[in-house]
């Protein structure tokens, strides 16, 4: 079962054939080890980033949902009491005018302001680049179309073509290796998880701990129920006697010795009993 799932995660042979056409260097055992390690690292990073992005998206959705709730019920999302996932710290405490809070809010504000400014500056730079290109192109065109340029241009094109080919090869290699790395990391995570669960399940101390906790909890529940029933016995006795104006019971009468013994002794030998019936 586990092998089948592992095989399903590994990319098919087609990508291997593609890779063999890309003329890689021969793999030595040491290189294979390094490659596996690299794959594991890249795959882990890829998986981690994917998971982080997924969670970020989920948190963002939750936040927006809480904002909608806030707008509909006039309650701040940070102080929502009916939502356990949201912080339970009171809103007033979060936004109080303490000096430490001021500094924190300043830094946070600066961070967001920098991010916004950087984005707007980047757009400006991009626009400026396009403008410079538009302005300079008419002036440069006579030089680029002169008879001196074509030989240089051919060499330049060949260089670019070679560079693009190399880049394409790297891209293919990266794509194929990324798929393998992810598969490998996933197998590593799953097998580690499975081994951890197996270890926990097989470890007698941990099993005993779980069992003891379960039994302890059940015992607590039973004890609680018994104690409450004894309280209820007391209360009912007193209540009914008060209701009927009977003499209140000072304390329970002491049972005979033999009866008390029977409370702690499960079974007595038949010869010792005084049962008359």
């Amino acid at each position, binding site marked *: 079962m586990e092998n089948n799932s592992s095989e399903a995660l590994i990319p098919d042979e087609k990508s291997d054939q593609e890779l063999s056409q890309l003329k890689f260097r021969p793999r030595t055992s040491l290189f294979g080890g390094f490659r596996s390690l690299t794959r594991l690292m890249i795959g882990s990073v890829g998986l981690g980033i994917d998971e982080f992005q997924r969670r970020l998206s989920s948190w963002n959705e939750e936040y927006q949902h809480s904002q909608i709730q806030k707008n509909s019920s006039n309650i701040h999302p940070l102080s929502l009491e009916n939502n356990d996932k949201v912080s339970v710290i009171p809103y007033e405490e979060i936004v109080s005018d303490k000096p430490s809070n001021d500094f924190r809010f300043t830094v946070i504000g600066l961070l967001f302001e920098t991010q916004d400014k950087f984005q707007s500056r980047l757009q400006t730079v991009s626009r400026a680049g396009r403008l410079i290109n538009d302005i300079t192109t008419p002036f440069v065109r006579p030089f680029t179309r002169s008879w001196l340029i074509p030989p240089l241009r051919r060499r330049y094109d060949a260089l670019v073509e070679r560079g693009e080919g190399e880049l394409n090869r790297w891209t293919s290699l990266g794509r194929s290796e990324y798929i393998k790395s992810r598969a490998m990391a996933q197998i590593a995570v799953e097998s580690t998880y499975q081994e951890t669960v197996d270890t926990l399940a097989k470890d007698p101390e941990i099993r005993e701990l779980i069992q003891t906790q379960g039994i302890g909890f059940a015992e607590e529940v039973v004890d609680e129920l018994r*104690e*409450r029933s004894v309280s209820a016995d007391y209360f009912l*006795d007193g209540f009914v006697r008060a209701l009927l104006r009977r003499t209140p019971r000072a304390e*329970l009468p002491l049972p005979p010795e033999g*009866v008390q*013994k029977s409370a702690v002794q499960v079974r007595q030998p038949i010869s010792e009993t005084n*049962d008359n019936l």
Partner: protein
Amino acid sequence: MTISKQEKTSDNLLGYYAGFISRLIAFVIDIAIINLSLLFIGWFLGIFLSFFDHSSVLGASLENIPYINDVINLVLNPVFIALFIFGFIFIYFTFFWSFSGHTPGMAFMGIRVVPVQGGPMSLIRSILRFFAYIPSILSLGIGFLWIIFDDQRQAWQDTIARTYVIYTWKAQPDEKFLSQPIQRLNSQREARKRKKYRKNKREQEQSS
């Protein structure tokens, strides 16, 4: 064998008479167990009898089985069913009382039925106690409610069969549950005691 100090101290009720609520909860648990058991038996019997609805069972024709219709009619007879349920309940209680002194419900609540002189319950006493339930039930439950009024917390069936029901654990009231009403009742009791004491003293003074 005597109860050691560790087992029996002044602040717990080990060996004391069990109250109405504890016994009621134990009884409810027993009834639930009996109901579930009967439900299971009925379900099993239903499946078993459904085989006979078909013309043949495992290749053998129903007609070849002697007296099968009589058996089915007997099993489905309401009188037989009522007798079966009564018998089941009878066996349940008498077996557990005579075997260990407590039914599963009583074991859960930590109480046990014992003869007035102590020791284990005999089968005959268990049977007597079971049939002593009948007057308690016929009196619309007054026989059970008698536990509240009786000094030894005996129901009618206990009085008839000469048994007590006692705690088999170091019983003590819960610290929080119903603590305020109990304290109020205790204070009322103390007030009544003081009032009675003063009244007696005044009467003595007047007479003297």
